[in-house]
């Protein structure tokens, strides 16, 4: 099912079978997109929302010179622009980072689902609250952490998000992003990211090679990134944390 990863492994908020089947039935269209394509422009009137089924997407804002600042990335299972359901437009652009598959749900279908199953309003709202929590974590990361901390935090966060989506075993996951993407996410230059990745590898803390991340020392990585997965509201955070 296209909706299998949505709210998967979320504390008290995962969809039950009936809810998942109803959301699945509400999908209007499934689209396969190339990498690096703009999907939604800011200030466009929207009548549908996008569930990311496969691949990675980003939300970003351009400065006056057209230089992009990534403000969020999305992993499979995320309802990328559910915000547009009440807001009708977005204040940022949305693009694919990798080739992606998306499922489109029209807003009128969401109206119907919520009318039929009012608890779904709470679950959809929960999903956007997780997005907001991730934004707060990104502010903390960029405002408080040094280069090593920022990358460590990003890797821990992505590991936890992908674990929740069923795409990490808690220590290894595919990350089809470039070092340039990570530089942009962490507000660092390529050279800086390259050096930190080398330091993490040499210290046997984490290896990022051929689009695969392998966390060798989760204790050190979480410590460097001051990472606490509580804001991701996982059913059980233990698999992405050091052993007790």
């Amino acid at each position, binding site marked *: 099912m296209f909706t299998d990863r949505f709210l998967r492994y979320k504390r008290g908020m995962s969809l039950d079978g009936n809810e998942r089947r109803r959301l699945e039935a509400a999908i209007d269209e499934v689209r396969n997109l190339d990498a690096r394509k703009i999907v939604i422009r800011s200030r466009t009137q929207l009548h549908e929302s996008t569930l990311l089924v496969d691949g990675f997407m980003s939300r970003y804002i351009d400065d006056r010179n057209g230089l992009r600042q990534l403000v969020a990335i999305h992993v499979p299972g995320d309802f990328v622009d559910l915000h547009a359901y009440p807001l009708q437009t977005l204040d940022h652009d949305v693009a694919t980072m990798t080739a992606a598959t998306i499922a489109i749900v029209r807003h009128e279908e969401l109206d119907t689902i919520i009318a039929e199953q009012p608890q779904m309003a709470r679950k959809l709202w929960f999903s956007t609250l997780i997005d907001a929590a991730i934004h707060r974590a990104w502010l903390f990361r960029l*405002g408080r952490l*040094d*280069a090593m901390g920022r990358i460590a935090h990003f890797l821990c966060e992505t590991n936890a998000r992908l674990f929740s989506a069923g795409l990490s075993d808690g220590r290894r996951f595919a990350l089809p992003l470039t070092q340039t993407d990570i530089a942009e996410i962490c507000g*660092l*230059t390529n*050279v800086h990211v390259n050096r930190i990745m080398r330091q993490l590898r040499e210290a046997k803390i984490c290896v990022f090679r051929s689009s695969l991340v392998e966390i060798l020392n989760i204790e050190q990585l979480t410590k460097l990134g001051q990472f606490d997965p509580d804001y991701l509201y996982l059913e059980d955070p233990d698999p992405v944390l050091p052993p007790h």
Partner: protein
Amino acid sequence: MIQAPNPPQPHEVPGIASAEDGVVILDGPNGIAVTMTAEAAAKTGESLMEAADVAKKQRCFDRPP
């Protein structure tokens, strides 16, 4: 419970500059992480030295007699 304000304060621990692939990386203090060309780094260094001299003098004048 009262939460005391905690705006950023002047850092007492210096940042560490290092060269990598023909550019200069400045790590710290705190969350600062900047990469500069060698020329920009040299000029920033001069500017920092000059400002540090002025700041030290300002500190002397601020002391009560």
